[in-house]
């Protein structure tokens, strides 16, 4: 804030071409153009369409050029300043000590033009509000690297922990490397399965919007035969599986996690290369998540819990997908092993089972009434099925419960659809919350939430024995937790 208004650096003019092609700035005019087109109509035929395309391109070029001309940035000794705005000017200033990380990404078009996009992530107070972001789009690769190192060097020299002498190029140490065979796990992971589904959905929407004459004509498919149905289902499943593998490959291709000095650097992506940097000093723990499908093949996903990190779910990823053994090796390099998990008391199993069976039992009761009163037995069958399904669900949810406290770290685990285990350092805890409902009180149980200034903000040990709460909280955080017993 003390620096004089310097001229500022500019992004590469080549970015104008990139933005013209992608209609980046012109996109905001689309809502205005549509009614215009609707009013004028497309009756003119080819000349009208050509004119429209030309008009949009010129408009896009103009806005891209204008916003390039109005954009400048300065990475000063105390803060990063970005000046932008088409009509109104906006100046954004982020002090260096608020900067949490720098990400360099290279989408395909940028790569063609030898450009990169730099995102500078600044913490904005609480964990809940998404951290602020400065985006400097369209730098030559060398300038992008310079900006990244410059910003990170400034930051570490202003922070209290660093010794102020930035090492030129610290040695790299590899923490994890993605093995392409792990892509085969993708069909069992919910989020990757959603990729082909979304693609198919988008395709359908596109087909709906195409004019009648262009739409390809299908004969009404004959779905009467069982054989056809089976083949269609098999093809659909195959498509889903292949699509999810492709989706996972696009995002995770060539994933590599290395330690460079005081930070962890993750690079990945097939089409858009991403380069994310996390400060090791700010890592408070890790979560290891396994979906129900992933557990079948012992696959997991590892995220880092970093204080004050915006968009933590994406940026904090340490291992997007991999075998359990590999994942735990990685976790234990960052956080001390808290020791074997302590299971929760039998009363907790009763509670999990009761909750899992409740819905099924209610439907069964309603079904009984319906059967006796009206001879309508459909509901009864559904109720019995739900109840039967509730048994493995409840047992599974109970099996997931557990906690452990070691000398330097602790861990809690819960969840069935996605089983998540958080391993946290003792210093991570900024508070405890102990909850006890009426029924938990009668069963001698309590739920303990470790409040953490990272990730979701709190990680719970559900239904642990009420007698163990005091010893666990003291073992898992610093001495102030003894307030619970004194």
């Amino acid at each position, binding site marked *: 804030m003390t620096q004089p208004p310097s001229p500022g650096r500019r992004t590469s003019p080549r970015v104008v071409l990139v933005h013209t092609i992608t209609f980046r700035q012109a996109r905001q005019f689309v809502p205005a153009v549509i009614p215009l087109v609707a009013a004028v109509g497309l009756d003119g035929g080819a000349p009208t369409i050509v004119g429209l395309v030309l008009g949009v391109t010129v408009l896009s070029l103009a806005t891209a050029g204008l916003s390039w001309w109005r954009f400048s940035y300065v990475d000063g000794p105390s803060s990063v300043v970005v000046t932008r705005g088409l009509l109104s000017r906006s100046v954004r200033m982020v002090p260096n000590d608020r900067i949490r990380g720098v990400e360099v990404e290279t989408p395909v078009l940028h790569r063609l033009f030898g450009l990169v996009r730099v995102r500078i992530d600044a913490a904005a107070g*609480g*964990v*809940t509000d998404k951290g602020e972001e400065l985006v400097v789009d369209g730098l030559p690769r060398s300038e992008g690297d310079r900006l990244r190192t410059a910003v990170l060097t400034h930051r570490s020299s202003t922070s*209290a*922990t660093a010794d102020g002498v930035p090492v030129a190029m610290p040695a790299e140490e590899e923490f994890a490397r993605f093995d392409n065979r792990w892509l085969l796990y993708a069909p069992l992971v919910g989020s990757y399965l959603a990729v082909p589904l979304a693609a198919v959905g988008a395709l359908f929407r596109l087909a709906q919007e195409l004019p009648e004459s262009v739409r390809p004509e299908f004969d009404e498919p004959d779905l009467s035969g069982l054989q056809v149905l089976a083949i269609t289902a098999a093809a659909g499943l195959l498509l889903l599986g292949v699509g999810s593998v492709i989706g996972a490959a696009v995002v995770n291709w060539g994933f590599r996690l290395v330690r460079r000095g005081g930070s962890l650097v993750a690079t990945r992506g097939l089409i858009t290369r991403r380069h994310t940097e996390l400060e090791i000093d700010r890592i408070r723990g890790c979560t290891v998540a396994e979906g129900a499908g992933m557990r079948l093949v012992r696959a997991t996903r590892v995220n880092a819990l970093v*204080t*004050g990190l915006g968009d933590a779910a994406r940026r904090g990823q340490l291992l997007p997908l991999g075998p359990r053994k590999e994942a735990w090796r990685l976790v234990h390099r960052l956080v001390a092993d808290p020791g074997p998990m302590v299971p929760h008391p039998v009363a907790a199993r009763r509670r999990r089972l009761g909750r899992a069976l409740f819905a099924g039992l209610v439907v069964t009761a309603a079904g009984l009434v319906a059967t006796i009163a009206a001879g309508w037995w459909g509901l009864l069958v559904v109720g019995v099925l739900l109840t039967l399904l509730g048994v493995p669900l409840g047992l599974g949810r109970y099996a997931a419960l557990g906690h452990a406290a070691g000398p330097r770290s602790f861990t809690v685990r819960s969840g069935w659809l996605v089983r998540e285990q958080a391993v946290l350092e003792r*210093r991570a805890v*900024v*508070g*405890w*919350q*102990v*909850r*006890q*409902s*009426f029924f938990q*009180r009668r069963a*001698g149980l*309590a739920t*303990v*939430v470790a*409040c*953490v*200034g*990272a990730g*979701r*903000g*709190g990680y719970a040990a559900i239904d642990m024995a*009420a*007698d163990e*709460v*005091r010893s666990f*909280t003291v073992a898992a955080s*610093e*001495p*102030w*937790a003894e*307030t*619970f*017993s*004194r």
Partner: protein
Amino acid sequence: MGAMTIARAPVREPAWSLSRSAIGLWVTEGVIGSVFAGIGAAAVVLFVPSSVGFLRWLVPAVALVYAVAVIGVRPWVRFRVHRWEVTGEAVLTLTGWLTRTWTLVPISRIQTVDVTRGVLQQLFGLSTVAVLTASSQGTVHVWHLEADVAQRVADDLAHRAEQVRDQAT
């Protein structure tokens, strides 16, 4: 209640109870809630055709039970349960009436301390102290303290937090 629940409490109770005016405030809140429930129930009785039968009277009955609970029972149970304490190292509160919640935050991890006074609270001369940490779930609310006590507690906490704050969040 009583000895049994205390014996099974997972952690100790904080030492101090709230101001007695809090009961008045909770009763007032209960009355306001009951008035709205009553209006809703009256609307159901008026507009649902009488052919529905006894079900039509189920809603007002539920509203009545609700009113008795929130005016006659909840304020007193809450007053017995709600407790708070500020020790040399931490702030500890206990809240709830059916589900009990203990929250413990060390003074060294306090980020901000807020004092708020709602409209109803002003009528009863009460204030709420909110102690915020870096965690979205680690916020302690000390509800319904006398206004001057609340201000003193907040000033004291803010002052001590500044002295012992450690850099870790």
